[in-house]
């Protein structure tokens, strides 16, 4: 067995994660790949909205200045990047990266692999017509119910186009809706030349991808067990996969960084967003999380082995975002004494005013921060001398008008309601558009022939 390993470093757990992380992953020690996951469930719709205003937009814009900052290091060290920063405009993103490379004086030294074909927004009517109802996986409703409100629709692609781009010599792979796990699987399968139907290895790479896809959440961030003992979180080490040719791997982080890589830290990440552990489904295969073996193999090193998997399904998941309505959340803070009673009285007054105005909402939700906002009734009754309570009241409606009117009813409570109230400096709450998520399934044969991989040169 070869002792060769491939090191894949997580640089971003979500769009908006710590900007320094990818830079430190690249400069803090040896890695082969930098994996950057940008896409959450409704991110695509935000990007679609940006693209409708500016056809050059529609991707994770901050990816480009980041690339400009680290491209010289990447080229010097031979590190490659896999990222779904392309959002709904991977071509625009890829071209912006090429321009950044030119600005760095790296003409002829950077190849960008562009993956497209996940976007099926323009094909929805055709697909529905041809008998793909794209039912909501949670509710079973057919997409035709909300067809006219759809903002974006993208199939989740797996590792195949990433492997193809790397085989084509890409240094930076830019994709649209590729699964977060695919961004890790791609480099591993490319490097070891494994067959995509080696289901145990697919499962192993999937688990590796799942462990690092949320960044530092696997290496001490948000770690509940022994959280006080987690040191150095001003400079958290983001996780790194060291994949071996036998399908096992080690999770670690760069030396000299904070945080911790331990069996508990990895276990907490493994169970994050888990469904049926025997059947973790991705476009590339099915991983059985009950087969995972973890062992501490040195300081900040956890060996992961034993993973079994099963064949991929004939279906791909489709992420659809649609316009739902409007919401707003207003807050006020009530001080001791009798803070909770004052906040409750204010809530009553506000609700009466909303009713008197004849405003109709789909939902009005009141939470008392400091009392019940996180654990609901499980929190029990608050201490009678509670020093302060934040009243947090949210409304949602299909129409904008009642939500807009609601936002003008918060500040007046300061002079027209219960006493000892403060914390309204933010002024009127903002009216937010609600874009909702509609997960569906589709036959992969409808999608895969349309997936394109292009290699572009700076």
């Amino acid at each position: 067995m070869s002792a060769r390993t491939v090191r894949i470093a997580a640089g971003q757990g979500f769009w908006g994660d710590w900007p320094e992380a990818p830079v430190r992953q690249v400069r803090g020690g040896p890695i082969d790949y930098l994996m950057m996951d940008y896409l959450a469930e409704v991110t695509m719709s935000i990007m679609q909205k940006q693209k409708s205003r500016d056809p050059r937009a529609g991707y994770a814009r901050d990816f480009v200045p980041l690339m400009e900052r680290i491209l010289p290091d990447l080229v010097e060290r031979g590190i490659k990047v896999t990222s779904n920063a392309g959002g709904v405009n991977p071509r625009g993103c890829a071209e912006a990266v090429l321009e950044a490379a030119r600005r760095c004086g790296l003409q002829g030294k950077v190849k960008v692999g562009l993956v497209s074909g996940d976007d099926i927004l323009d094909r929805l009517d055709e697909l529905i017509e041809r008998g793909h109802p794209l039912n909501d996986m949670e509710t079973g409703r057919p997409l035709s119910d909300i067809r006219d409100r759809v903002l974006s629709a993208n199939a989740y692609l797996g590792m195949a186009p990433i492997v193809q781009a790397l085989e084509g010599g890409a240094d930076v792979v830019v994709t649209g809706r590729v699964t977060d796990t695919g961004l890790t699987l791609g480099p591993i399968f490319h490097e070891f030349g494994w067959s995509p139907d080696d289901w145990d290895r697919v499962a192993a790479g999937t688990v590796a991808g799942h462990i690092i896809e949320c960044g530092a959440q696997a290496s001490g961030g948000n770690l509940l067990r022994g959280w006080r003992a987690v040191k150095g979180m001003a400079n958290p080490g983001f996780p790194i996969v060291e994949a071996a040719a036998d399908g096992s791997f080690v999770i670690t982080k760069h030396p000299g960084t904070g945080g911790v890589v331990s069996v508990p830290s990895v276990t907490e990440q493994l169970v994050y967003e888990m469904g049926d552990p025997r059947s973790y489904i991705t476009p590339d295969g099915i991983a059985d999380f009950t087969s995972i073996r973890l062992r501490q193999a040195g300081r900040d090193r956890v060996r992961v082995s034993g993973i079994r998997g099963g064949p991929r399904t004939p279906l791909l998941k489709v992420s659809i975002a649609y316009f739902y309505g409007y919401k707003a959340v207003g807050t006020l803070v009530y001080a001791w004494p009798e803070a909770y009673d004052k906040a409750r009285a204010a809530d009553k007054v506000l609700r009466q005013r909303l009713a008197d105005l004849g405003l109709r909402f789909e939902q009005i939700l009141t939470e008392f921060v400091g009392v019940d906002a996180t654990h609901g009734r499980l929190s029990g009754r608050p201490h009678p001398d509670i020093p302060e309570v934040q009243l947090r009241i949210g409304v949602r409606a299909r129409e904008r008008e009642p939500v807009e009117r609601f936002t003008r009813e918060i500040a007046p409570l300061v002079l027209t309601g219960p006493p000892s109230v403060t914390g309204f400096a933010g002024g009127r709450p903002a009216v937010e558009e609600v874009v909702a998520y509609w997960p569906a399934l589709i036959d992969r044969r409808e999608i895969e022939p349309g997936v394109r991989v292009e290699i572009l040169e700076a």
Partner: protein
Amino acid sequence: MTRLQLRYLAHARSGDKGNTANVGLIALEPKYYPLLVREVTRARVARHFKGMVSAVERFELPNLNALNFLLHDALDGGGTISLKTDAQGKVYSTALLRMEIPVPAALARRLRPARAR
């Protein structure tokens, strides 16, 4: 036997999938895992979260000394629709750790911090 909060026996992390929250409950020591399997039943968790969730599913991961719970309709619509502070179920984890289960008195004495005894 006496009652002990799960926080002294387990740690946890939670997340979301649509309107469902999941809580992974992990034994602090492998030897506590059988106790969790026996006492933290689907029905007890459903009772614990009564009024907050519509249905509960439980899965076992003996390899990780962990149980995974799916809490359906826990997020008031979930994702972007939900008005809740915890729209993504991030702290359902510690809400489960509030639950008490029956344990041998000697074990409870050993695990409970002195001030809570």
